[in-house]
């Protein structure tokens, strides 16, 4: 190389160094800014932030308000509620038909949704317990004494979610630490029976552990886990202990229902329907509720789920309903049939395709349903020009308890509609203001009654308790109790309160192993393995440790 070339290269190198220098001093900082959300390092600085964070543990409960998840699992699989396929509507790949006929598979979205709801509740409680403990260590503002009640509340809530997992899926991983590795999450046993027993033991011991650490003030804890919610969950656990573990625990049911009764915090409301009004917050009968609200805690979507496509003018709704969930005809009959439900006789809507008025028992709890002609606010019958020509009622809409068929062409107006929660006139979006009930006092009485009856078939207090419920509904008291009567009374009282599947499984069946397995309209006898749901396919794929429940 000659001088010129070297000179050139020299110059190039010098200038390169200059550029390199600029490059080095230039910005190479790649710290990411998060502007829209908060990162955990910047949270839990104040009491308000702690309480605000707590809310996230409860938010998975809002899924109770949709027609999927818990409603699909507890109600659509039962003899209370059905979603017929109405021509082009509600086919949805056949899921509602499969749930009704109990032919569900591990791939059903709604089963996976329910699993995800329960476990996001569990994950959130675990995360908050972890974060609260850290906050005490790292912050001078928060003391251990302040944080302990919150942690007890979270453990109680976590046990409640696990009670739902136990009831629906039987055998699922017990996760109590936020930092647990996925490879460590497995069911307590590969065997359903053994795993379910261990899960039961876990729920029981957690609930008993936190019982005396929790708040007892009912008014300050609306919608939150207090001592009475824990007693109630324990009572439910023991009520179904025989299903879960093969060992009955009726005496423990009595103990924990008594604890609630003796506290004198709760009482039956005079009027059944008052429990379900738009402004039902703080009813003395409510034990555990989801305080829904049109603005703040949205998601209680019953109106769109159940009301007719053309029902907007009936309630001046600001949205068009979807015409989905309906009441099973035979279930409706259990209210008006004087044999099953003795009481004052009067005019009720009958079971024929026209929905004619007949004579039957007038139970106050018929308010649970919307049947008969659908009227607008001025009292004119609303019309549906698109009504099926085979429908004898034609375009004027009449909701009949009669349902013509499950699929494919269920009439649009067939089936009693669910009007248990008061429909608010002028509701602007499909988000009710009514609080949705998880536990209420009537169930305390009914559970105690059942437990006493199970221990002694002629226990007089059992009969008295059931009759208190019947009395409030203004129907005649029973003279004796039997399994059919107790189950039917629970049905009438707790319709659409997300407990029908559990109740059916607890009673011995006629054609099947349990009442849940029995045949009913458009459903054959199902195998006993249907009494727990399959572990969802998505979960099996995501976590290879999981074992599918037998039969699926």
């Amino acid at each position: 190389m000659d001088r010129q070339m070297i000179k050139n290269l020299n110059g190039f190198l010098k200038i390169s160094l200059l550029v390199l220098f600029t490059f080095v001093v230039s910005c190479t900082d790649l710290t990411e800014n998060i502007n829209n959300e908060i990162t955990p390092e910047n949270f839990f600085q104040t009491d308000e932030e702690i309480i605000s964070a707590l809310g996230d543990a409860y938010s998975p409960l809002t899924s109770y308000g949709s027609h999927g998840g818990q409603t699909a699992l507890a109600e659509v699989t039962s003899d209370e509620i059905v979603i017929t396929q109405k021509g082009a509507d509600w086919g949805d790949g056949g899921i509602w038909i499969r749930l009704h006929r109990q032919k569900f598979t591990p791939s059903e979205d709604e089963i996976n949704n329910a699993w995800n709801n329960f476990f996001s509740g569990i994950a959130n409680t675990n995360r908050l317990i972890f974060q609260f403990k850290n906050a005490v260590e790292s912050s001078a503002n928060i003391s251990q004494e302040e944080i302990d009640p919150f942690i007890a509340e979270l453990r109680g809530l976590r046990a409640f979610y696990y009670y739902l997992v136990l009831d629906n899926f039987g055998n699922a991983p017990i996760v109590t630490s936020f930092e647990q590795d996925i490879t460590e999450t497995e069911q307590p046993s590969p065997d359903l029976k053994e795993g379910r027993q261990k899960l039961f033991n876990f729920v029981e011991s957690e609930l008993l552990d936190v019982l005396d650490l929790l708040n007892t003030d009912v008014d300050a804890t609306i919608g939150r886990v207090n001592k009475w919610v824990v007693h109630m969950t324990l009572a439910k656990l023991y009520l179904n202990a025989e299903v879960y573990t093969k060992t009955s625990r009726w005496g423990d049911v009595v103990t924990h229902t008594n604890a609630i009764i003796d506290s004198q915090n709760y009482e039956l409301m005079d009027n059944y329907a008052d429990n379900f009004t738009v402004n039902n917050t703080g009813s003395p009968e409510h034990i555990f509720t989801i305080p829904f609200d049109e603005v703040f805690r949205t998601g209680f979507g019953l109106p769109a789920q159940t009301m007719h496509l053309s029902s907007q003018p009936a309630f001046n709704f600001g949205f068009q309903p979807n015409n989905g969930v309906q009441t099973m005809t035979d279930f409706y009959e259990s209210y008006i049939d004087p044999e099953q439900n003795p009481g004052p006789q009067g005019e009720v809507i009958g079971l024929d395709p026209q929905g004619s008025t007949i004579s039957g028992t007038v139970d106050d709890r018929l308010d649970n349903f919307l049947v008969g002609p659908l009227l607008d606010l001025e009292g004119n019958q609303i019309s549906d020009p698109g009504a099926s020509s085979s429908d004898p009622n034609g375009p004027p809409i009449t909701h009949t308890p009669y349902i013509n068929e499950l699929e494919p062409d269920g009439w649009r107006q067939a089936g009693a509609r669910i009007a248990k929660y008061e429909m608010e006139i002028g509701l602007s979006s499909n988000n009710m203001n009514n609080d949705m009930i998880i536990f209420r006092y009537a169930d305390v009485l009914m559970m105690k009654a059942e437990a006493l009856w199970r221990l002694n078939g002629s226990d007089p207090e059992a009969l008295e308790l059931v009759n208190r419920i019947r009395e409030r509904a203004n129907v005649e008291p029973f003279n004796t109790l039997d399994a059919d009567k107790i189950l039917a009374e629970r049905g009438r009282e707790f319709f659409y309160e997300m407990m029908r599947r559990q109740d059916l499984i607890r009673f011995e069946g006629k054609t099947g192993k349990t009442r849940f397995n029995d045949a009913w309209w458009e459903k054959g006898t199902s195998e006993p393995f249907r009494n727990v749901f399959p572990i969802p396919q998505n979960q099996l794929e995501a976590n290879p440790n999981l074992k599918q429940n037998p039969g699926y």
Partner: protein
Amino acid sequence: MLCAVSAMAQQTIRGTITDASTSETLPGVNILVKGTSTGASTDANGAFELTVESLQDTLVASYIGYQTQEVPINGQTGIDIELNPESIMGEEMVVVGYGTQEREQITSSISSVASEDFTSGAVNNPTELIQGKVPGLIVSTPGANPNESPTLRLRGISSFGNNEPLIVVDGIIGASMDNIDPNDIKSIDVMKDASAAAIYGTRGGAGVIAITTKKGQAGQTKVSYKGDISLMGVENKIDVLSADQFRQLSKTTGIEIEDLGANTDWFDEITQTSYTQIHNLSISGGTESTTYRFSGNFRDNQGLLKHTGFQQKGGRMNINHYALDDKLVLTLNLSATSHNQDVGIDNAFRQAVTFNPTAPVKSEGFKNTGGYTELSGYQFFNPVAILETSKNVREFRDINAAVKADYNFYDLVPGLTASGFYSLQTFDASHNVFYARTSKFGGGASPSSLGRGHAERQTDKSSTEQFDMTLNYSTQALENLGVEVLTGYSYVSSEYEGTTVGGGDFVSDETGFNNLEFIQDFNKGLGDISSYKNDDRIIAGFGRINLDWNNTYYLNGTIRREGSTRFGENNKWGTFWSTGAGVELMNILEVDFINQIKLRASYGVTGQNAPSDGISKLRLGPTGYFFSGGDFIQSFGPVSNPNPNLKWEETKEYNLGVDFALFDERLTGTVEYYQKNTDDLILEMEVPVPPNLYPTSQLNVGEIQSKGVEVALAYDVIRSTDGIWNTGFTFSTFNILLKQFESDVPRYLANVGSPGQNNTQMVRIRENEPLGQIWGPRFAKISDDGTWRFHGSEGGLITRGEVSREDEAVIGNGIPDFELGWSNSVRYRNWDMSMFVRAVYGHDLVNSARVFFENPINISTYNVTTTALDLTQLKSNSAYSSFHVEDATYLRLQNLALGYNVPMPEQSFVSNLKFTFSGRNLFTLTDYGGMDPSVRWTDGGNPLAIGIERRNQWYSGRSFSFTVNIDF
């Protein structure tokens, strides 16, 4: 020793170097004695002085932008050299990352289209200019929605996220195509393979489209005007029953209909023949130290759908200034565009199919719905009412500014140039929507009551700053070896923010979305308000080396080290690199009829940035409200899972190509084969909730492999002074495989939709299967009882209720086998003609309109397509199956243009006058029965759901344009 000997014979040579066309002196020209590294450069006056060993040597004069010239000394001591500008010699320069390169030297896959080959007529988007002209690039514009940008796919799919190529406009990386008027574009270069795109690092994964705008030239001021008037009509629509056919079908089938007495053609009611005008005026010129070009554009475009269209005004300014003896070149580019769009509501198309044809548009008793007839039924809306009781408008402005300074160190180090580049892109948009209280569609009205109405205002703005520094050194290192080295640093910082406010319940519709105080929802705590802000940065250092041996052997290499804020803590930085080699065989061999055969091979690694900000971190956000102590308080919870290992998607691609020219360059062409593998694809995956906090995580899963063959041929059929005829073909094949996924469990995407088929999916993706698979039940027949029968997995026929996943199968593929383009351009004296035909072969589409709307039993509720007349035996509900998947192979006469250049006298004030008459989408040959057989690359933004035509598809349009070009 040699030096000592030769020194004795040294001679000094002096001379001046000038521009051959303008005779201006050229400073900074590099002069070398051929075969040595002895050299000099010209001074400010273009003069040079050089010592040579022998007066029999040859001088080599080279200068950027000029053709390199060899001049034998031939014993003289005074030599003046004239250099020819490169463009005059026809040397093709290709835009590569951060610079240009001669076409000869390119070893990667870059296709270039110059303005003379652009699609003519009313073109609104720059990519339409090159639709079908670049093998491997599919530009898909289904339907004639004037406010929808085309979908671009370069060599198929290389990401689960963004698959749109990176757009670079005059050096601005990631520029918006909305801010360039097609008339201002000089050329478009498409960097197709990873080797070409690697210099753009994490943003080059889907390829790069580099757009170069027109510049001014020194000399006389030139004024050009182009005006264009177009008319567009519906090319294709869905045929539905007329009111009479509707009544007739009711009679023959006995199915009751709701006969409201009128005869309404809803398509006619919602469409119009649209009228579009485009005007472009440009002024360019300059002096030897400053050149400029200014242009202004105006377009007023009506849509086929009534009440839709847009107005656009834009301006662009390019200024180049030469200073300090031309050592310093300053460039300024400014562009601004303002768009006002009437977006309309696509759902009108869907409703026009189904709305009862016996219903009058308006009738008595519908005061609450604005007089428009509205029927009961879920999601049925009067199509005219949808459009006329609502407003959906979008306005946005793009402003880009870029400055560049190039400094040529010819006096210190010949061949060395340093550049600094800064650009600022700003974007402001507002999107406003209003539904009147009389609107059933969005305002909640029903015949019995007024609705609540809805008004919404959304504003978005973003800005991006880019700063690049580059250093370029080119030299003839050895007699036969040319070396070009580039190093650089790049910094890009972006910010995005926006606000949305909306609600309903007004007393009066009068103020629309202008005064949100009319929204009573806010007073009740209802209504929606949200806002966001995001920012991210990309920082990179890069380098490139090009070696050229004797203009015969070429070797290229690039490297880029890049970091992005969007990746996880452990993976902020990545390295992307490429290499390529080429050989020009005709410099080695001698074959009479072959002018050029260049073989080239390249390999490169590019990336794809993460789809959005913050996705590698655990973030907490509002999760609703929580009732505590008698009051609702906002609750917070995780909205993401942390993934500190999240990294870029990485594409590795090799490309083999041959460029050739035969028969005196009459036949030229390129054949290429590529294979690219993208792995670490980022997808939001469902994860188990214990131990995760949030049910989905952004994970690096999966690998996609694409391969294909691309051919481009051009042949001069006639070459004479009176006329020419050139014909060209492009051909590309596609083969896209999902090579790896998180497991081999299949996933199903793309729900058929409401009503009734919300949990029925149409697309399956699975490891080791091709992408684009349309999935579903296999239709067998309609049985005697009028219900569907499908093929079961075990051979028999099964009913709809019996179909399970095992019975379903692949029933189509949405990705074409190949695409073919055929262009012709003919010039005879003052006339010219061009024609462009495009064919796409082998893809299928789900015809969603048929899935839902060809069922005769539905006439009880709504209207159906005419295909229902052949299906009168059907008595069962609509059910998606292979029955609705159609072959969408098509051939389309996309463009036909005839132009006449009016002869102008020599001294005329007008130097050039040309009239052009052109048509677009003149006809389409296809068996597809839906609206538009174009490939559907995305479904609602999901790049994995390919091949679905939805019910609210716009019709395709056919347009005729008249264009005038005048140059002064």
